[in-house]
């Protein structure tokens, strides 16, 4: 927990510096007759972020904040494994959407999660993997008229478009 607390503060301090540098792409000073420049607001706020990070680091050194005193591990091996599986499969699903679209990626994700992570029966996993995309299609594409990304599977939907529109 102690290491995590310090790492987060340091990473965020670096991020604040980056934001400050990035803000200076626009004028951060006073422009006569125009008021503060476009970069001023984010610049001073990022400076504030940096100061907060330094404050947190200070509290880490003096051990005044609860996480900097805690001896518990930030993540137990079991939690870490679970986190990597869940976040990893989520990232994989989003990545796959680019290639095989929502209607390919979502069923795969649901089957992986429900069948292999949740250890439920194939019947539950299969029925949800089929019904969720259908519900999503009817709701978003037909009712809301918002097309969801389909990647390379787009041609497969032409007959459906013809049918509904």
């Amino acid at each position, binding site marked *: *927990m102690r290491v*995590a607390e310090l790492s*987060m503060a340091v990473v*965020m301090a670096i991020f604040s510096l980056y*934001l400050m540098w*990035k803000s200076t*792409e*626009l004028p951060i000073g*006073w422009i006569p007759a*125009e*008021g*503060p*420049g*476009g*970069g001023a*607001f*984010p610049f001073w*706020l*990022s400076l*504030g*972020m940096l100061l*907060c*990070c330094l*404050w*947190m680091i200070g*509290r880490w050194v003096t051990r005044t*904040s*609860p*996480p900097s005193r805690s001896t518990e591990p930030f993540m137990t091996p*079991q*939690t870490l494994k*679970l*986190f990597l599986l*869940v*976040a990893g499969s*989520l*990232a994989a*699903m*989003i990545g796959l*959407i680019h290639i095989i679209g*929502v209607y390919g990626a*979502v069923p795969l*994700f*649901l089957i992986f*999660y*429900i069948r292999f992570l*949740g*250890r*439920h029966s194939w019947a*539950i996993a299969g029925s*949800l993997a089929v019904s*969720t995309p259908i519900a*999503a299609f009817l*709701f*978003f594409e037909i*009712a*809301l008229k*918002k097309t*969801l*990304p389909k990647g390379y599977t787009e041609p497969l939907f032409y007959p459906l478009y013809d049918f509904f529109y």
Partner: protein
Amino acid sequence: MEVLGLLINGFVIAFEPLNLALIVAGVVVGLFIGAMPGLGSVNGVAILLPMTFLVPPTSAVIFLAAIYYGAMYGGAISSIMLGIPGASTAVATTFDGRPLALKGQADKALVAAAAASFVGGSISVVLFTLFALPLAGVALAFGPPETFALMVLAFATFIGLGGDDIPKTLFSILIGLVFSTVGLDIISGEPRLIFGGLTGFYHGINFLVLAIGIYGIGEMLWTIEISQGEVLMSKATVSFRRILSNLRDLKGNIKTMIMGSFLGYFVGILPAAGATPGSLMAYGVAKTMSKNPETYGKGNIDGVVAPEAANNAASTGSMLPMLTLGIPGSPTTAILLGGMVIWGLEPGPLVFTDHPDFVWGLIASLYAANLFALLINIGFIPAFIWVLKMPFTILAPIIFVLCVVGGYVPTQSMHDVWLMLIFGVVGYFMRKLDYPMAPMVLAIVLGPLAEPAMRQSLIGSQGDVMIFFERPISGTIMVIALFLIVLPLIKNMRKRRKRNAANGPN
């Protein structure tokens, strides 16, 4: 009398078949979301906001407000049955609700929670109706300095009353504000903070991306982590006769209900305070006022009644500043406010004159939602208990899919979906380290309103910061805000002095 006419008009709108159906649907969805451990009104409203583009703004806000309302009722269910707060707003309900359930009086606690929620909701809705117009009238006189001062007050409340680590709260506010400046600079029109030159940043960071990332993905990751262990479910027997006799038993608790309602309502109005501190405070006051405070925490029915009346009252209260001033009173209303902007309504006092149907339809729908929530809640207690038994490994992936699709729909860009995942994961880590997340979401919603207000004020005063202090209203607000910011420092110093005094003689 003007109010009465407007309210009747509002009822006509709220009882349109579509809106009435949405109220009932919203209450049911809200009850289920609230009943699920870890998910509260914020999560429900954040994840479901993209679904409301189908209907007109008035119906959309009615639906979301009904979810908000239902979730306040539902939060008590898992607090009592599982001992896990269904939402942060129901934390105080576990203190006495859980012991009651363990004593085999779960149904008594559930009925008491529902009845208290109804009383809290009813009282606060009436107060809301009475206060809305006068407050909006005052707000009409506000210029940019007053608007900016109010925003400062909203953030100061987090620092002064939030009770979280101060540098972390401040950091959370600032990073939210910086994220809100990404995109095109509103005054000069130049691109700003385009990270890595990615074109996806030109349209700015949509607040929904941050909200769904944090309250959808981040919260789910968090819940998955804490729900690894087995949870003990209490048994409850529910029958119509028992419900009636339980209701009759509640006569002695009416005083606590009324106290909780008023307290919750006024805490709810405070910008950024919301229902969680409201319910905790009500619990504390009920305990101090009680003749036998030692029974609290061991299953005193007043300990369920006070926080439940307060959290419902606060949820209504927090909508008052959202509608009249354009400043949200809670994280959930921050998201509703962001929704109003998406629907094309300018938040602030002008909504009352420009879109009376929207405002009064919403207010009237609160009356209706309150009644439906009570009936559905009591009628469906067995169903909610069944939902609580549903394995999280089925629920979680479906919610994840909803988040991903919901994050894509508003802007239809995959860039936002990736950003949402990053926010979710980083938000989850930050939450583990006690960074409060609500201020960040509030800041990204208020940022686009705060920055122009500040810049316009400064242009008007030619760079003199004193403009925020010289005008009477903004000056008063600023002084209160500054007081709230230094409040924790004073508290800290006192604590240290006390500790020193205690250590001194030894």
